[in-house]
């Protein structure tokens, strides 16, 4: 009897405790994001900090993004050609490659790679800065970490990812061109003219860019918050880094589904 009562009591207690923690976590997260957003305008004035982060998040992600774009474009056109050639419409391979890249694969694959390459690095860096008390030290030197650390990184992600996505897509189309025109012998004029007439600036390109901005926002928020909230130990930081990659990747895929439903239906 008493035992059952105790068990129920402790169950209630732990349920209550974890609900409180959930709400507190959510509140902390919201406050943090609002803080970062409010510090963002002043971070725009610190060109030196922003440039450094653009270099780290953007320029250093270039090799992986460019290589991946090229390979994805080549594979797409190879597979597309094999299907289209049966219907005697292999010139459409350019259109197919471009549309897949611009609408879906460009934003999504670039975001996934970026989350793994730059998002995880952000989380680890901030987590380590916290565990070595560098962020506390900034506060003690009367320097607001929101303005000095978080906002420049937030902006850098927001600016880099859409640009990287455009480059990924461009390289993908180049890869498609090399395979279909250079290797499989598709007519060059038809390849480009079909692509021109079927890819719409507003419906396709703009929507793709909007997607990548949304993904950038998602990755930035997750990576920065995980770093900010990491338990300042080795396990804590490594756990937070893993969570950034997992949450950001799943988040990108889910968000992509939602955006596609809204944009292309």
């Amino acid at each position: 009897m008493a035992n059952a009562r105790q068990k129920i009591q402790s169950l209630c207690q732990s349920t209550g405790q974890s609900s409180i923690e959930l709400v507190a976590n959510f509140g902390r997260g919201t406050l943090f994001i609002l803080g970062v957003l409010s510090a963002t305008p002043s971070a725009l004035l610190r060109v030196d900090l922003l440039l450094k982060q653009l270099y780290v998040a953007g320029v250093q992600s270039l090799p992986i993004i460019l290589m991946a774009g090229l390979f994805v474009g080549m594979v797409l056109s190879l597979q597309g050609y094999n299907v289209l050639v049966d219907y005697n419409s292999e010139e459409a391979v350019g259109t197919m490659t471009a549309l897949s890249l611009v609408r879906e694969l460009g934003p999504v694959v670039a975001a996934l790679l970026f989350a793994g390459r730059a998002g995880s690095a952000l989380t680890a860096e901030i987590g380590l800065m916290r565990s070595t008390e560098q962020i506390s030290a900034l506060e003690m030197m009367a320097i607001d970490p929101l303005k000095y650390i978080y906002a420049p990184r937030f902006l850098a992600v927001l600016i880099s990812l859409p640009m990287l996505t455009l480059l990924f897509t461009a390289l993908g189309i180049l890869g498609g061109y090399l395979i279909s025109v250079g290797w499989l012998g598709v007519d060059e004029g038809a390849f480009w003219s079909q692509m021109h007439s079927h890819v719409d600036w507003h419906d396709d390109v703009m929507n793709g860019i909007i997607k990548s901005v949304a993904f950038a926002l998602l990755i930035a928020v997750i990576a920065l918050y995980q770093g900010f909230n990491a338990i300042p130990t080795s396990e804590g930081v490594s756990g937070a880094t893993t969570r950034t990659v997992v949450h950001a990747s799943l988040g990108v895929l889910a968000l992509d589904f939602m955006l596609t439903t809204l944009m292309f239906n």
Partner: protein
Amino acid sequence: MGVNTEKPLIEIKNLTFSRGNRKIFDDITLSIPKGKITAIMGPSGSGKTTLLKLIAGQLTPDSGEIYVLGENVHTVSRKRIYQLRRKMGMLFQSGALLTDLTVFDNVAFPLREHTKLPESVISALVLMKLQAVGLRGAKALMPAELSGGMARRVALARGIALDPEMIFYDEPFVGQDPITMGVLVELIQKLNDSLGLTSVVVSHDVDEVLSIADYVCVISEGKLIAEGTKDQILQESTGYVNQFVNGLADGPVPFHFPSDSYKEDLAKLSGMTVNDSKGSV
């Protein structure tokens, strides 16, 4: 009697602070006199670092007030607390240097962020501060290339870059070899006297701290258990203070973290229940 009539630089009134279910501070009242070296001692985990963070307004107490220069650090605006922090220097346990900047740039950092001084003046100031800690020759090194003691001295140079009124040292002696320890002790004393600072040294290295402190507070289990001048503390020969000052492992301050009885723990391991009250373990 000039010392006693002067208002204390920092006043802590009825401070209570918890982390989770653990009460770190339970109704602590103490004040830190101006121009002196005050030591706050207590075993590891007693909340010394936490206390410094509370004083600097990085953490907020559950109840009670902390006044720095007469201002309550937890009710003033965010802007004001940042202004107050410019008058505080803090030496973190790890040094907390910015790892992507050289020694020189670390020390220059607060000057560049907070002043519009021309680079030539900043250079001169930085070299002066580095000279004061004996590391002018290390200005081009990166933090990763420094030993622990050197990193702390660079952090100290950075801490005094803006000429603060008070400086907090968090465990400055931990993990240092005897020579470095002597250097640090001397440095803390010298800086306090030559710059007219108020110093707060948080530590559990009794001998080193007592050699420089003017005033000592001892904290244990969330309570302030002793406070007074160095001589008063040394004369106190009973209880906690005796245990602490003389480094006894067990005494009124338990060596063991609070736990269930050892016997019950062992009994659980062997799947028994404890019912014989006189059984031996």
